[in-house]
């Protein structure tokens, strides 16, 4: 019986302290970490169309179309298929593709989640924060070439 009483006392304590753990979203939104990875933002000014992001993407979410001069024509990204691994941002040498902290996006059909270049450019920053600083990309760490011969792929 004592155990039962203890259980009931514990829940009653929680009921009476008046504190809630959940919040009234969306009026009060919990903080999103600076490193949080949300929807992508694309910068055409920066992009050099090197196609490394397309290449590294584990599940072919990014599709790039170039003309015969290798000028970029299309940059499509299926944000519903994306697994938000951030490898595209990591490989990008010019920070042309960035994952904003914006996680609030909806669509009526799955097709609406295929974002083209213009849509990707217009993705807003979450609360106006550019996450690049906090991500502190340590490029030296990943563009290393190892001790062996240099590998240009």
């Amino acid at each position: 019986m004592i155990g039962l009483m203890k259980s009931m006392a514990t829940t009653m304590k929680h009921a009476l302290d008046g504190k809630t753990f959940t919040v009234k979203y969306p009026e009060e939104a919990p903080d999103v970490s600076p490193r949080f990875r949300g929807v992508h933002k694309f910068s055409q000014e920066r992009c050099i169309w090197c196609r490394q992001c397309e290449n590294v993407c584990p599940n072919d979410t990014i599709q790039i179309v170039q003309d015969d001069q290798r000028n970029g024509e299309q940059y499509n990204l299926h944000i519903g298929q994306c697994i938000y691994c951030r490898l595209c941002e990591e490989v990008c040498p010019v920070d042309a593709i960035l994952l904003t902290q914006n996680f609030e996006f909806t669509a009526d059909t799955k097709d609406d989640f295929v974002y083209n270049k213009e849509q990707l450019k217009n993705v807003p920053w979450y609360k106006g924060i550019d996450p690049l600083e906090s991500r502190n990309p340590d490029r030296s760490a990943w563009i290393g070439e190892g001790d062996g011969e240099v590998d240009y792929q």
Partner: protein
Amino acid sequence: MSLEPLDSPDADVVPDRTPEELEALLGDLVVGRDDHLNAPGFVIRPDTVQETLSTLKSEAGYDHLSVVTAQEYENRYESIYHLKKFDDPTQEVSVVVPADKDHPVSESAEPVFRTADWHEREAYDLIGIEYDGHPDLRRILLPETWQGHPLSLDYDQNQPQIASLPAHVNPIQEHHKDAESDTMYLNIGPHHPATHGVLHLKTVLDGEQVVDVESDIGYLHRCEEQMAQNGTYRHQIMPYPDRWDYISAGLLNEWAYARAAEDLADIEVPEYAQVIRTMGAEMCRIAAHMLALATFALDVNGDFTATFMYAINDRERVQKLLEDLTGQRLMFNYFRLGGVVWDLPEPREEFFSNTRDFLDQLPGSVEEYHDLITSNEIFQMRTIDTGILPPEVAKNYGATGPVARGSGVDYDLRRDDPYGYYDELEWDVITEDGCDNYSRLLVRMQEVEESAKIIGQCIDLLEDWPEEERNIQANVPRTLRPDDDAEIYRAVEAAKGELGIYIRSDGTDKPGRFKIRSPCFSNLQTLPEMANGEYIPDVIAALGSLDIVLGEVDR
């Protein structure tokens, strides 16, 4: 550390043997050597599997069949039995069984190791090797009506992959329905409130008592092994381990891949990165165990129990820390081969103090869970002496993790096969001797406290780490091409137990064969042992105490 192994007479009796001594022990059974990076490999004939394995088990003390890997080469099929010792998992041996290319038949290991049952069914299902003498060789992950074996080399993806059930049914098969029978067949799942995902339990009931229960898995099968085989070592595989045990145990899973691939490519991880990995992994363990506790309370107390929400709240706190560290709440993708992707978040002091706050309030929370559930008489009535899994049975089924430790099997890879920074830190392996649902819960609750100890020590270390030595990644080539035909099996202690990865390289930048040893897969196999003869609520409780994640069972 805390407890001596319960039942390990072998430890004293069986001496450790060198590969040559083992070869001598097996004598004529060995027809060749095919050593792996982690263990000596003995090639044997396909009709001597049982003899070889039982010799190794009884005379050399290899009592843990970790996993059965099957694969197809250009000229042959191959099954690899990865054996270990529960007392010392660093002693490994691989038994390689080639099978004929045209008629891949190999003797089943099921009579020696019960765990081989499901592993061989999986090998049959995905690769197409048939196991002679297997008690129940059916498909396990794919639907019964699937055509072909998807990981075999000649598998044609363009063919219709699944036949309709009417077309598949054998018209002359006899219909087994006994009108006089006292039993009732009941489908628990695949959509049921307590199966923790899409699991289907085929249950035969006698009144309220369970006569037989059989798990039907594979509803969440994504062929993660094949996905990994299509990804490059360097980057593309790492996001996927997060999706096996997706209950926020991601870093633990990533570590399994990282450990195997780093050992395969001979990459040295900087010490600083190892400490961060250890800390992150233990945070994941707390998150995973909190969810296990929450859902177990849900299964026993019924929905609307407050315990569930309290444990979810605590998990939320640790997830917040993980989000600060990794940038994601479940699918972290934080490890990289040779280290981690980011250093601790700036400002570091804030991260340390947040973590310390969490660690400080954790003992209070755990105390509260003891008040809420473990000291509750009804809860004790429900969980003590139900779902019994004796240690010998647990070993035979290859159960690991809290399930094995709840049965008194003192087996924890963090201590027994050290990796990361674990061997430098002060912590204990928790075991309980109750072998029941209650013990498994207690093990998890105490492991949360041990993890907190580890995190606290890591935080202290990281805080004092000199700034110039904070090296988070080793210098790793941008494209990794391990030597051709190198094979390795490496395991880590994930939230649910031994999570192992077997990789065979084929000279390209993608693995030739990538095999996942899922702890949940082996643990779930023990369910009939726990459940038969018990009541329906006990089956649900036993299933909850196994703490399976279907994403990892089905992969």
